[in-house]
């Protein structure tokens, strides 16, 4: 294969950066959409769920998204495998964390694997009970809910404490991954200099923090609501 996107280290990093950026943009959209579930009785949220049912555009979107995750995932393993080989077989007896180096920057694959596991869990909780049900031509999932009743599904999922804990761990891994990932993706495409590096790191903290809080607040609020039926 004669393309620099596969056989040059900087080309492979470019793929990592673009696919990562695409996933970040998707997450911002998804997070904004979720927050709507906090408004009113959930009917606003269900309108969005209706839009994003088994329509052609939602299906295309899902396929592109799956492709993005796959590319990012496969490249992550290729890159990490090559990097381990470049490091050599003999390791240092004494290692330190160098000044100014984030833990997450050295553990992107580990964090990514946690993110993928969380994603699989999430797909069984939601996607398989919504879009998949529609695709199979059924009008209710195994919980007896309409496939477009996202609000009720959120309510059901986050009334179980262990789901809330699992999702929070997932969001935290994502938060750490993006703490590094968001500025790293700019550096990779070359959009950084000594002035902008500190700014980009700050932007990365804000974006990853926003994504974390936006997702976490929905899970936590719905759990609290399940505890007191009056609120």
């Amino acid at each position, binding site marked *: 294969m004669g393309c620099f996107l596969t056989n040059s*280290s900087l080309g492979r990093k470019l793929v990592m950066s673009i696919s990562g950026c695409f996933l970040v943009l998707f997450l911002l959209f998804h997070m904004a959409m979720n927050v709507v579930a906090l408004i009113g009785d959930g009917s606003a949220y269900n309108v969005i769920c209706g839009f994003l049912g088994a329509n052609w555009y939602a299906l295309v979107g899902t396929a592109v998204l799956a492709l993005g995750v796959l590319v990012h995932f496969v490249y992550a393993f290729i*890159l990490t495998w090559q990097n381990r*080989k470049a490091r050599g077989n003999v390791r240092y007896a004494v290692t*330190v964390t*160098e000044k100014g180096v984030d833990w997450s920057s050295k553990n992107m694959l580990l964090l990514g694997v946690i993110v993928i596991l969380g994603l699989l869990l999430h797909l069984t909780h939601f996607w398989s009970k919504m879009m998949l049900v529609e695709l199979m031509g059924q009008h209710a999932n195994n919980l007896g809910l309409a496939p477009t009743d996202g609000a009720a599904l959120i309510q059901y999922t986050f009334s179980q404490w262990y789901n809330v804990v699992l999702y929070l761990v997932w969001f935290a891994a994502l938060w750490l991954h993006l703490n590094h990932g968001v500025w790293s993706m700019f550096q990779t495409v070359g*959009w950084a200099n*000594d002035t902008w*590096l500190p700014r980009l790191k700050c932007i990365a903290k804000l974006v990853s923090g926003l994504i974390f809080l936006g997702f976490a607040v929905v899970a936590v609020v719905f759990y609290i609501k399940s505890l007191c039926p009056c609120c």
Partner: protein
Amino acid sequence: MNFTLKIWRQRDAHSKGEFKEYKVTDISSDTSFLEMLDILNNDLVHKGEEPVAFDHDCREGICGMCSLHIDGHAHGPSQAVTTCQIYMRQFKDGATITVEPWRSAAFPVIRDLVVNRGAYDEILQAGGFVSVRTNSVPDGNAIPIPQADAEESMDAAACVGCGACAATCKNGSAMLFVAARVSSLAKLPQGRVEGARRAKSMVAKMDELGFGNCTNTGACQAECPKGISIAHIARLNREFLAAKLED
């Protein structure tokens, strides 16, 4: 001062190495780290043992020949200095100090603490130069260069090619070195001419020699004895991607 040294000993590239412990005593606090190793070697030679092999040349922080991974840090515990600029007063009296060679697949150990850093020379040969024909171009000193550009170029040119960046990087990536070389020439009119070709051939050589993919951890700039910034890596990325887009 007295120290216990745990030093990596290895006969040659093919044999298996191991740590050996040595004691050095009555070391003055003003002794440099390399002088302390000289004292140890003097003792070893007197006892009929093999001295510890280590790289060094200028011993004034400018040649980039010294290496050594001391207590987990490339070039020892101080920031922005080479190993030859480390002094024993920076260690606690009675401390045990672990000394290892650079560890990177592209820098094989030749003997004890000496590694082969020829890979960096090969990358330089691939494009870290400007081509100048005599009598055909104006004298370099006659070309006006904005001061800010000259400063940035000189900051990058401070790289001494020591290899600490690849040795420190968890990915065994040589990006800081290549970036410093590409950046120092990219900011000068003399270097611009071959800019695209340079970025492509140096990156290709770096990949071919088995260095890893940079993930922007920033460990290299923390350990670089010349304080080269990873902002230069961003410039290398720009130079390379722009060159590729033109292909």
